[in-house]
Structures are given as structure tokens and as C-alpha cells.
């Protein structure tokens, strides 16, 4: 059984990572084409650091992803708790409205938000981009937290209150730890969605603020420059390193 588990995990992860490995390898390809191997080179990495446009996009992508996922997680978690305790009718209405950004094709969300911003005379730029990202992130947070709330034993909240805790303390010390996996999942999904969004971002940004997805999709007519492969490889290695660092620190703490 244990072998089966390990095998299955390996297969799934292999499936997930096969394309990633491929694209990393091609970041060292001397030829611009992914159809042939032109030899090993670091030139794309060098060109990457000379390209202000891509670096600027990277900056905005990361900032927007971090801020929007954090804000969405906070608003979404609180909202999920509130919705969870609503009457059935209200809950159904609110949840169905919450589903809308998830159902709607990106183009509809993107264009309708663009019109909204133009209508309230808000110049397209960083703020509108941020608002747009928070808007499509919140439903995913709510959808991640709700199952944990359903799983929660309602009596422990009341027990905490009975033992003299204020509602806020009861929330912080009792409910939050229990729903934490859902909150973390929501934050992760929100961050992931934000990193890779093109259509909505395209229609809600301006003033020179671009994100990586826009930069990359705009290359669609010309072919994706391997500089992007180089960038993705660097990003991925960074994430891996971060993981290793955090992991080492927590295992040290646990051994202490």
C-alpha cells in the first residue's frame, strides 16, 4: 500500500513537472526555436537582465500577486465566516453572486470592470489592476474556507465564549487555527491565479503598468522569446530555494 501511494504521488508529480523541466531546459537553448536544439548558452539570461520591460512586468506581477492575495484572503475569510452564519436564503443569494467571477469568462469580467472604471472616471493603472485582481481572488478564498467552516464543530466556539473569551479572542485562538488549512489553500490559489492572469489584467491596467502575463501573451504573434523561459527558470529556482529555507527553519524549530 505504501508503495502504491509513493508510486501514485510520483506519477502525478512527474505529470505536473514534465513541462516545467522542458521549459527550463529550453532556457539554455541557443536557438530561439523550441523545435531544435542549437547548443547550450546563457545568452537569454544575459538578455533578460537588459530588458527593462520584462523586469518591470515582473516587479508589478509579484507585487500585485502578493498584495491582492493577502487582501483577498483577509476579506474572503471574514466574508466566509459571515456568509456561513447567514440564513439559507441570504446565503444562497450571496454564494451565487460569489460564483460569478468564477463562472464568467475572463473577457466578460475584464471588459465589464474596464467599463466600470472608466465610468467612475478612475484612470487605468496600478490601483485598477489591484482592484481587479482582488475581485477575482476573493471567491476562491471563500470557496476554500467554506468547507472548513462546514467541518467545524460549532460547539467549540460557544465553549470558548462560555469560558470567558471575547468573540475576537475566541475567533483568533479557536476558529482560525481550525480553518487555517482552508485559509492557506485560499491564499495559495489566489496567489496562483493572480500570477497568471492575462485577459482581466489587460483590460484593467494602463499607465505603463504591465504584468508578466500581458508581456508574454503579447508575444503571441511573434513567438515567445526564450528570455521568458530564462525568467521562469529563475522564478522557479527562487521558489524552490525559499521552500528549502523555510523548511530547514521549521525543522530546526521542531527539533529544538
Amino acid at each position, binding site marked *: 500500500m505504501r508503495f502504491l501511494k509513493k508510486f*501514485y*504521488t510520483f506519477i*502525478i508529480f512527474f505529470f*505536473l513537472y514534465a*513541462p*516545467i523541466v522542458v*521549459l527550463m531546459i529550453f532556457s539554455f537553448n541557443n536557438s530561439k526555436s*523550441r*523545435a531544435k536544439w542549437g547548443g547550450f548558452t546563457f545568452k537569454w539570461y544575459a538578455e533578460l537582465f537588459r530588458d527593462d520591460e520584462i523586469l518591470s512586468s515582473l516587479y508589478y506581477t509579484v507585487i500585485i500577486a502578493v498584495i491582492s492575495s493577502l487582501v483577498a484572503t483577509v476579506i474572503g475569510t*471574514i*466574508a466566509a465566516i*459571515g456568509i456561513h*452564519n447567514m440564513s439559507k436564503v441570504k446565503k444562497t443569494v*450571496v454564494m*451565487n*453572486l460569489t*460564483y*460569478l467571477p*468564477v*463562472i*464568467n*469568462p475572463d*473577457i*466578460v469580467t475584464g*471588459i*465589464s*470592470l474596464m*467599463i*466600470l472604471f472608466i465610468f467612475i472616471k478612475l484612470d487605468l493603472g496600478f490601483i485598477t489592476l489591484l482592484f481587479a485582481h*482582488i*475581485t477575482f481572488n*476573493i471567491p*476562491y478564498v471563500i*470557496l*476554500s474556507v*467554506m*468547507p*472548513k467552516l*462546514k*467541518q*467545524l*464543530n*460549532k460547539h467549540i466556539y460557544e465553549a470558548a465564549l462560555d469560558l470567558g473569551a471575547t*468573540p475576537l479572542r475566541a475567533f483568533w485562538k479557536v476558529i482560525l487555527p481550525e480553518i487555517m488549512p*482552508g485559509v492557506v*489553500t485560499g491564499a*495559495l*490559489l489566489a496567489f*496562483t491565479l493572480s*500570477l497568471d492572469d*492575462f485577459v482581466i489584467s489587460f483590460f484593467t491596467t494602463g499607465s505603463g503598468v504591465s504584468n508578466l502575463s500581458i508581456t508574454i*501573451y503579447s508575444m503571441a504573434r511573434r513567438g515567445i522569446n526564450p528570455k*521568458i*523561459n530564462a525568467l*521562469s527558470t529563475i*522564478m*522557479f529556482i527562487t*521558489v524552490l530555494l525559499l*521552500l528549502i529555507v523555510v*523548511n530547514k527553519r521549521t525543522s530546526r524549530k521542531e527539533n529544538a
Partner: protein
Amino acid sequence: MKTRWIATPYIVWMIIFTVVPLLLVFFFSVTVQTDDGIVFTLEHFKKLMEPIYLKVLLRSILLAFVSTLVCLVLGYPMAMILASSDLKRKNVLVFLFVAPMWMNFLLRTYAWLTLLEKNGLINSVLSIFGIKPLNLLYNNLAVLLGMVYNFLPFMVLPIYSVLSKVDKSVIEAAQDLGANNFKVFTKVTFPLSLPGVASGITMVFMPAVTTFVVPRLLGGAQFTLIGNLIERQFVLVGDWNFGSAISIVMMILILISMGIMSRYETESVEGGFFG
């Protein structure tokens, strides 16, 4: 409980950024710009009823349904494995699971092209063993693979987050009462995980209906799906009215099917936290 009011900031946000744009879309779907100004009409909805568009809609729903099913079948065991691994490895594994999604979608899909093509990597490896090149691209299998690749984490993570905190004592009680592993799963674990499954299905099925980039890139754009039909109306044709009408119909269809599903979920989950 006073707590229901804390959802207010979200409700306000939602009204501004979700409801108002929705009303705009609805407005577009029921009006048309004539020489005499804006007139109310149902002609866009009527246009959608033409057989050709219904075929497109059906195909999109079918693809989304199959993709969701495959994600569920493949993803549930993965979620179980993640939930049952020891604490230290758990977080690392979850992160590693999501990390591929942080690479740009186009790049990843192009990497699949490199893997699946006639002269691609998989066929190159197979040819070493003397196996003839397989036709792995521009067919339904390739599209399904791409869909599952993109949506799997959205199915796995919510199920995992619920399974990770399943009350061990309930399982132990069931085992004490003489249930074997299969019964424990079907009668205890799975029903308790249903809220996670419901969220997973929601987060996969809904966007899958309107997805079109994967079918375009891995399916060779042989078929129009409702997602690219809508996009074309807004961007290429400039017929925002028809595009909005299709969106509204889609929204209603999906919400109804979710509604039916949630009724099933409510009935089968005993206990829980219903405020």
C-alpha cells in the same frame, strides 16, 4: 449570531465590483443599438437558440464535465495521500503541488507541445524502443490532458484541506465498530469530505465551461467552444450584445446546475455547522 454582519465589507466590495458589472452585462444582453437609440430586445437570446450555437454550448459543457470528472478521480487519491503524509512533508508537498502553476500558462502549454508532437520528446523516447510515433496531439486526449493539467490543483487543494482535519476519533470509532477500510472510506471519510469535493468541483467545472485556450493550443482550434465564441463577440466582432447574451445564458445554466448539486450535497451530509 452577530458574526453575520462581518461579511459586510465583502458585500460592499461585491456590489461594486461584481453586481454592477453584472448589471452592465445584463443591460447589453437585452438591448440593441439602432438608429433611433437604444431599444430593448430579446433578439440576441433568440440568436443563441440556433442549432449551431447550441452545438457549441453542448460541446463546451461536455468537455467541462469530463475534465471535472477526471480531475476528481485523479485528484481525490492525491488529496488523500497529501492529507495523510506526515506534518513536515505535508506543507512542502502542497507547495510543490501548486508551484508549477506559477509558471506562465502559455509557456507550460508550449512545453506540452514539445512533449506531445510527432517529433516531440515523448515520441523521440519511444522511438529508442522502436515504437512508432504516436499521435498524441490535436485530438481529444491532448485537450483533456491540458485541461486536467491546469485544473487539478483546484480540485486537490480544497479536498486536501478538509481531509487533513478529519476527526481521527470518528474513524477510530468506525473501525472499533468493525468496519473494514472500504466501509470506513465510503461511510465515513468520503461523506465528511464532501464540502471539499463540492468546492473542488465548483472551482473546476465553472471555469472549465468557458475555457478555450487549452482546446485552441492543444486541440488545434478545430472546434469553437463557448469561451472563444464569447471572446470573439466582444473583441473581434464587436457585438457586445450577443456576447453578453451568451454570458448571461451560461451564468444561469451553471448556477442552476450548481444549485441542483448543492441540494444533493446538503441532503447527504449529516451534522456539520449549519448556522
